[in-house]
């Protein structure tokens, strides 16, 4: 149902006429949904006022940030958080940065690098919100997921402003667990729905030491930016191994020695995507690299805090790779390619070249847990991709999966995806079926994949958490105005 004139006027009074629209013609710009309205609040107070009006009028809302594809019900009010785009604070002493939702990771990261810091860049890419919760290339040293969310400013579905963690008691952002109210399990649920109702309007993200340069010495023109020189204390390599077991053993040893700034279990197809500037070139390079690699592998960045530290890390890396019969991929030893990958993986988080460029879409199954176990599951999922590759329904990446260690490898993430042309209904259907079947298999084999759901199916296997969650949602959203899929997209 569209907004009534009175309702529209009430929202307009909050944000101003230029920051609200119910014009149907421009809604496809967002998604193929008839939203009741799209609203651009500028700060927490306006978000709060809008949410209070949603409660008053019993209208459902959902927020978005940079917002990749999503599914939205009709008649929803879309709160586009684009105007909340400020870096509020970078606290070097306590190692956190406070940001609004539309600060993208590339912006925050650039500011941090100048100060000798970095933070967790999510796999979705540095084009996404710096507040986004998730995992990415740098997990080995910057951890991932909710561990990096410190204090949060949250406008609840009823329009209350809740300040979590340290913010709730000391008006400071340094900790997510207290001395104020933690409520971490509500604010960052890892299981479906995966996001919290309401809107996060500010969050503190945890910072980490950055041993690299204040800015990379980039040269050339798009789409081929290269580094004038590889920073003297950094090195990037790709190693392939004769077996999954040997690769995993090397990964564990590297984690134990804590020498890798990044350890990314890229497959050769993903390396090819990242170092090439178009689809045709990618196919050629992948074919060439497929012959160069001896089996599964990973990409590594080491970064020293001194010349001695760098030399030590290099030596340990070479020894561990040798002990496990690893071979360095010559293509990546070329300084030009090495530089491209350094920049791609730390500053861009690779993502778009390796996901959307080929056909326009991909479906993924990310799976968390101990890497050696999740890799076993992923090998099966990779085999299940092969018939789709043979039929030409998905891009041929050799059936490969990828993944990485988190916090030097005591935890890990494994992921596998199918790239396809979303305009091809047969391909779309085949990929959806593959995703469903492999997610079900993960569930049966007691792995946790974030594609699992719905809640009432997986809840019973997880202490009936869904029943508790439903009670919590009812308590914080009595009018049911904030449907699933909320706070950070």
């Amino acid at each position, binding site marked *: 149902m569209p907004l009534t004139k009175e309702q529209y006027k009430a929202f307009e009074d909050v944000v101003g006429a230029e920051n609200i629209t119910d014009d149907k013609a421009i809604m496809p710009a967002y998604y193929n949904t008839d939203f009741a309205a799209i609203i651009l609040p500028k700060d927490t107070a306006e978000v709060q006022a809008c949410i209070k009006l949603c409660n008053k009028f019993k209208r459902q809302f959902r927020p978005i940030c940079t917002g990749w594809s999503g599914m939205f019900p009709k008649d929803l009010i879309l709160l586009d958080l684009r105007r909340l785009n400020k870096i509020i604070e970078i606290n070097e002493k306590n190692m956190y940065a406070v940001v609004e939702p539309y600060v993208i990771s590339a912006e925050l990261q650039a500011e941090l690098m100048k100060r000798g810091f970095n933070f967790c860049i999510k796999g979705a890419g540095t084009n996404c919100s710096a507040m986004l919760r998730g995992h990415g290339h740098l997990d080995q040293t910057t951890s991932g997921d909710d561990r990096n969310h410190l204090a949060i400013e949250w406008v609840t579905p009823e329009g209350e402003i809740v300040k979590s963690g340290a913010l709730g008691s000391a008006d400071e952002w340094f900790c997510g667990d207290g001395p104020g109210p933690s409520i971490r399990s509500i604010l960052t649920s890892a299981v479906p729905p995966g996001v919290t109702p309401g809107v996060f309007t500010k969050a503190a993200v945890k910072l980490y030491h950055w041993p690299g340069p204040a800015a990379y010495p980039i040269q050339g023109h798009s789409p081929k930016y290269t580094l004038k020189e590889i920073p003297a204390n950094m090195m990037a390599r790709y190693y392939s191994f004769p077996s999954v077991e040997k690769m995993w053993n090397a990964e564990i040893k590297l984690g134990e020695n804590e020498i890798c700034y990044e350890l990314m279990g890229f497959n050769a197809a993903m390396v090819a995507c990242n170092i090439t500037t178009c689809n045709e070139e990618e*196919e050629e390079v992948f074919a060439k690299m497929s012959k160069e690699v001896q089996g599964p592998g990973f990409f590594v960045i080491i970064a020293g805090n001194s010349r001695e530290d760098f030399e030590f890390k290099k030596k340990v890396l070479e020894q561990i790779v040798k002990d496990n019969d690893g071979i360095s991929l010559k293509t990546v030893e070329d300084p030009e390619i090495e530089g491209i990958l350094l920049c791609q993986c730390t500053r861009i988080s690779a993502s778009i070249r390796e996901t959307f460029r080929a056909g*326009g879409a991909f479906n993924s199954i990310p799976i968390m847990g101990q890497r050696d176990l999740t890799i076993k599951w992923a090998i099966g999922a990779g085999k299940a991709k092969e018939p789709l590759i043979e039929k030409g329904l998905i891009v041929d990446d050799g059936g490969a999966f990828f993944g990485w260690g988190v916090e030097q490898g005591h935890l890990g993430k494994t992921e596998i995806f199918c790239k396809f042309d979303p305009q091809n209904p047969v391909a779309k259907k085949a990929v959806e079926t593959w995703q469903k079947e492999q997610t079900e298999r993960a569930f049966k084999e007691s792995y946790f994949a974030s594609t699992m759901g719905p809640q009432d199916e997986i809840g019973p296997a997880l202490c009936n958490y869904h029943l508790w969650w439903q009670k919590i949602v009812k308590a914080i959203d009595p009018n049911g105005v904030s449907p699933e899929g909320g706070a950070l997209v």
Partner: protein
Amino acid sequence: MSLEQYKGDMEMCCRCSTCKFIPMQKIQGSDFSYVCPSIAKYNFHAYSAGGRMNIGAAALKNGMNYTPKLLDVVYNCQMCGACGVSCNYAMDMEVLEPISEFRMKCIEDGKTNPALDKVIAGLKKTGSMVPVKGKRGAWATGLKLKDATKVKVDVLYHVGCLTSYDPEMQKLAKSIARILQKAGVNFGILGDAEMCCGGRAYQMGYKDAFLAQAKKTMAQIKKAGVKTLVTGCADGYQTFKVLYDRFNLKGDLEVLHITEYIDRLIKEGKLKPKKKVEMNVTYHDPCRLGRLGEPWIHWEGKKIPGDRFVFDPPKEYRRGTKGIYQPPRDVIKSITGVKLTEMTRIMEYSWCCGAGGGVNESNPDFAVWTAQKRIDEAVSTGAEALVSACPWCEKTLNKAIKASGSSLKVYDVVELVERAI
């Protein structure tokens, strides 16, 4: 071409928002990270390239849904192409082309902008994109320049509408003429007979008006029998070099921007900037000299059925890589005493001055707002002057300076060169 031909490209948009920003690895912080003036000012996703592509794809499926807001989106775009550069760092798809086709479709359907209609009516009537005051070649009085309609010359200097008619911009034409004279170039102008290149009509979406004008102008140039055309206007440069080639009008005419030509003359020793010019400057890349000035690539092909968005024959995309970036910089650096400090957004990911795509005429406030952002960026470098290579840029940037009271000066590269020789 038609919107339909870009269906696949529009459907490729994954709504990643990179089109709003400069390429990620070039971002230096929270300042000057945006590349698209339209989304930076108007905020609704519809104003970004991604939003425009998604609207275009929906229009092909469900038909055009004209509303005032849609037309506001359509006409508040400078067609500067920065979105395409950022997108095409990672993606293989056309971006500016479908956006341009969408606007042309609006015009075809009669959903025009009155301010732009007026400009096009003026073009049809007077052969100029700007109001005509006096004679087109009056600026050249007393300079003793050759009339290329009467005398055979090696180089034709095409002055352009704004430089010819705007009293504030005529200084650029005079500077260029004096520089070419100093270098001993056998050049001429068309004077009162010179006609508009038509390029700004194309940017505005009036393809038929552009083609009609372009054919007349090219016929005149062919008649003059010149092999090389030099222009001081970035819009003119892109029109002659790229658009005329695209529509098979250019033939073997060599098209050079004045900065390319001066760079060549300096490197050949025919022009010597000997005098010292003490000045801290920064350089603004005009969109149509830079990213949109790269040569047209003639291509026809079909998508290969299957999982990838690839074509037979393979399609080479224009990603802004081969624009004119170095020659103006080399010219500036050749002048003793001039210190060049770069801004954050340069070359292929340069921020637009605001004047393109008809915005200068349809929404002058937005044009000045865009220019003001560039002024802020220039000031942040510590430069005392912003140097560009296009009269449209200089005019719009000066308007912003006037509006804000900034002490920054704006010069064209040719003005610095003239001081130095």
